[in-house]
């Protein structure tokens, strides 16, 4: 088989992404159809910037979902004679091409880039979501009560923010720390926040109707409790509460460390944003109205203040997922946490950079992929901000 030319490479790649195109087209068609009924999300389709951002984000989300259909080779599959080959080189057995060339271990750069999206798309939004739960659960009372609680929490947040991120990663994401079980203890604390948040949320709303309240709390307790325990517990490590048979969700320790440290780094910033928004919103008359009605403190915080802070928080969520993507890349770039053969973009850039001046593709491809995802999230955030201001 002959090597492919530039045009042919592009066409073949575009063809490989067919499930992604269908997915994006379907979502865009549906959203356009019901644009006026979808609130803020619907208004995104009035702004070209937001649509471009959304398209980029959806592209990577669908790529992560359909990885198996898109990738041409396995992530660890080494094909002999394909070491450091340029893009479009056919494999010796004639079954196909290395569309974007081969890396220094003769693996397919294209397939690894595609598979790398999965790690980012799973970790980045979830860890950001957990960071938001932590930030919100602590930021609301800090802003609302003020006083010593605020002084203490703000000091702690500033303390974490004063750490250069990389130093923190170098301290937290090492095998030595993993041995002590510290990340798992951290996870134990951090993952408690979503449950706490949900319970308080439901309790505040149904305080006056105890019947509904008790059932809802029980359901949350049982379901989230199980997920929580099985997330945190890992047989053979410092925390092994559940036997392996009952452990539904198994998170490898190194992924857990990465997850926890990203949450740890992001929470203080979310805390500061939520605190600032709370300070602003608590002076509104409808908060005073709720107080004069005799509402509980958590009801006021979660049902009167939080929903009205959602605009800036949604925007920040998008930006923060982008930032988390960059952080994950940074971790990979320094070879921290994730295993060296992992196809995530940061690690691939790291392994590709050594031969950068001679064989640039293995590093450039994941670099561009990472950039496009972050760009998409930033554009989306910009679009969201603009549209939410246009009310």
């Amino acid at each position, binding site marked *: 088989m002959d090597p492919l030319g530039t045009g042919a490479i592009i066409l073949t790649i575009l063809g490989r992404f067919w499930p992604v195109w269908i997915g994006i087209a379907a979502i865009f068609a549906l959203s356009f159809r019901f644009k006026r009924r979808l609130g803020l999300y619907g208004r995104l389709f009035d702004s070209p910037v937001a649509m471009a951002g959304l398209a980029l984000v959806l592209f990577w989300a669908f790529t992560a979902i359909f990885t198996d259909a898109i990738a041409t080779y396995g992530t660890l599959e080494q094909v002999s004679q394909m070491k450091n080959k340029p893009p479009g080189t056919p494999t010796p057995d004639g079954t196909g091409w290395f569309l974007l060339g081969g890396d220094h271990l003769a693996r397919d750069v294209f397939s690894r880039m595609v598979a790398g999206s999965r790690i980012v798309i799973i970790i980045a939004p979830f860890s950001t979501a957990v960071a938001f739960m932590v930030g919100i659960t602590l930021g609301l009372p800090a802003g609302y009560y003020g006083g010593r609680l605020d002084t203490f929490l703000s000091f702690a947040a500033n303390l974490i923010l004063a750490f250069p991120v990389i130093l923190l990663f170098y301290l937290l994401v090492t095998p030595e720390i993993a041995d002590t079980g510290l990340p798992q203890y951290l996870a134990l604390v951090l993952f408690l926040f979503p449950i706490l948040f949900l319970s308080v949320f439901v309790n505040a709303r149904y305080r006056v109707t105890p019947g509904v309240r008790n059932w809802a709390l029980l359901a949350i307790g049982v379901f989230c409790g199980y997920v929580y325990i099985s997330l945190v517990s890992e047989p053979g490590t410092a925390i092994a509460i559940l036997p392996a048979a009952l452990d539904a969700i198994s998170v490898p320790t190194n992924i857990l460390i990465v997850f926890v440290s990203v949450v740890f780094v992001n929470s203080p910033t979310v805390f500061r944003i939520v605190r600032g928004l709370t300070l602003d919103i608590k002076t509104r*008359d409808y908060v005073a109205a709720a*107080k004069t*009605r005799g509402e509980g403190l958590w009801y006021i915080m979660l049902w009167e203040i939080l929903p*009205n802070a959602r605009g800036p928080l949604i925007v920040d969520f998008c930006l923060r997922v982008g930032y988390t993507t960059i952080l994950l890349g940074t971790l990979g770039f320094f070879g921290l946490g994730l295993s060296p053969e992992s196809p995530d973009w940061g690690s691939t850039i790291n392994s590709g950079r050594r031969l950068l001046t001679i064989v640039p593709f293995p590093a450039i491809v994941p670099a561009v992929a990472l950039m496009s995802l972050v760009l998409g999230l930033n554009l989306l955030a910009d679009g969201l901000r603009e549209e939410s201001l246009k009310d």
Partner: protein
Amino acid sequence: MTDQTSRDPILEIENVSISFSTRLREIPAVMDFSCAVMAGEAMGLVGESGCGKSTVALAVMCDLGRNGRITSGSIRFKGRDLTTMKDDELRQIRGSEIAMIYQEPMASLNPAMKVGAQLAEVPMTHQRMARSEAWALARQIVADVRLPDPERILNAYPHQLSGGQQQRIVIAMALMAKPALLILDEPTTALDVTVEAGIVALVKELGAKYGTSMLFISHNLGLVLDVCDQICVMYSGEAVETGNVGDVFTDMRHPYTQALFRSIPLPGADKNERPLISIPGNFPLPHERPEGCNFGPRCGYFDPGRCDAADIPMKAIAGDARHETRCLRWSEIDWSALPQASATREKRPPGEVVLRVDDLRKYYTVSSNPFGGGATRIVKANETLSFEARAGETLAIVGESGCGKSTFARMLMGLETATAGRLEAFGSSLEDIPIEKRDADTIANLQMVFQNPFDTLNPSMSVGRQITRALEIFGRSNTDPERESAMLKLLDMVKLPRAFSERMPRQLSGGQKQRVGIARAFAGGAKIVVADEPVSALDVSVQAAVIDLLLNIQRQNETTLLFISHDLSIVRYLSDRIVVMYLGHVVETGTTEQVFSPPYHPYTEALLSAVPIADPKVERKLILLDGEIPSAIDTPPGCPFQTRCHWKSRIGSNLCEREIPPIRTLADGHLLKCHLSDDDLAHMEPVFASERGCN
């Protein structure tokens, strides 16, 4: 001004239409607007918010922003068409020939630039004046607008001045180049009434001194009567009536103008015998204007087939000079007919005492250093408040900003606790029980209606849900269906359609939101309702309807209404008794008649005289107070009002500066906190001099 000069128009606006383009559609803001301002004349532009009056002002400045444009017509200034001018020419005119004064003085001054530099910039730009010369001129003008210590003011930053001082600086800035036309866009709306009176007097005086023509934009008819010679009433983007102030105020020839006058509380109005008549319906949105007459759907003289057939032109009124109306039927309507009297209500005797306030005090400690730490100072927000309120009566608490009326409301509601004194409601003391510790009944019995309609409802919760939540909390009904029906009944009570329960607050107008706020306050059958300026942010035609509603519900439930306000016209209209507050002190208490007729407390007298009244028949004595309201941190020694009091000279031996006056009983229930002798009080003249037979 002479007849000669008033013949040449300085500004002629002819058939101007202005529209703004938005993403969805082109919105016409002003249609077919014409008016002329003669030299030395003051033209008042009146209308409710959204009627396009500010847009006209910006169009004259040719500063409509990127989305706005003048679609037709011409604006001629001294004979030159501004709409076709180039940017350079426009810049020559702006600031030197036409100057503008804005609503928010703080926002219109550059926070990072010294006042002097901002003033001097005008002649430096337009006359290429040297810097030192320009500063000298600025110093002179600052003295002209009667600001004390010009040197210090010039070197201050805007945030170091009070609101009234800032507005004087904005006026000084407008006068720096001695413009031929001055545009004033609601120049006093953000200020207190006694400060407003000073600014209005200044504007009138300077206008006469420099012979400046004025375009005065306001929603306040009383102010326009005070300042202007000509008036132009706008409704929904159109001028509906123009003419000389005297003609329009006494012989109006447009149904909207008439309805507007009937909906504002004039001294003769009374809640029981002559209730206000609100304008039915809502202001049309710009893209939902009806065919034909814009006011048609809300007009009592509406004639289907004629009024909604085609656009209605302005017609001159025969017999009056420059008096025009945009009404087809003006010659058919009997303008002297009295309004159809809506059901008069009988006055109810007050019930037993439900709220007793005795020597209540609230002090705050604040740090004098913006970064915390340092010496702390005491803010005396409330000093020795004493009064009581009875079941079913309306007690008004009146005073300007900083007088402590809102602090009292917060204490009553339990958002703050008192420093000392007693606060007793329904026989139980509440002064040191915060809201968290009050039982559900007390909470449900004591509710509040808030000031700002745009802030009073949670923007992300439906109207029905917010009312239902109040019902849940007050425990008034037990099951969801019960609460649902109770909520719908509350909507009926505040005269909102039941379909509104599904709506979000942003889909409601200001008046409608305020109604929801009222429904929520009455959800638990409240016995005492505090209304903190509930209508001050609403347009006059809506104000009447909301007040009417509040009074009706009060009557049905025999609620005690504590009406907090700075607007004496409304207070006079609806209250049974009045408490006048100044700097945390109650200076006068009495029935409405007692407070509104002499003897007055000197502060009450000044306050009454400061309120502009939209009735040319009423003449009032003008008493201008010097200076500003002192800050609550630096309260003057002795009588709180002594720094601004006109009567202080009557009291010898610095008594006012040494001692807080005792509370004196003048007549049954009429209490005064003043050192003035009985003789002086007896010789006080009424503020409304030629007011005969109105009361």
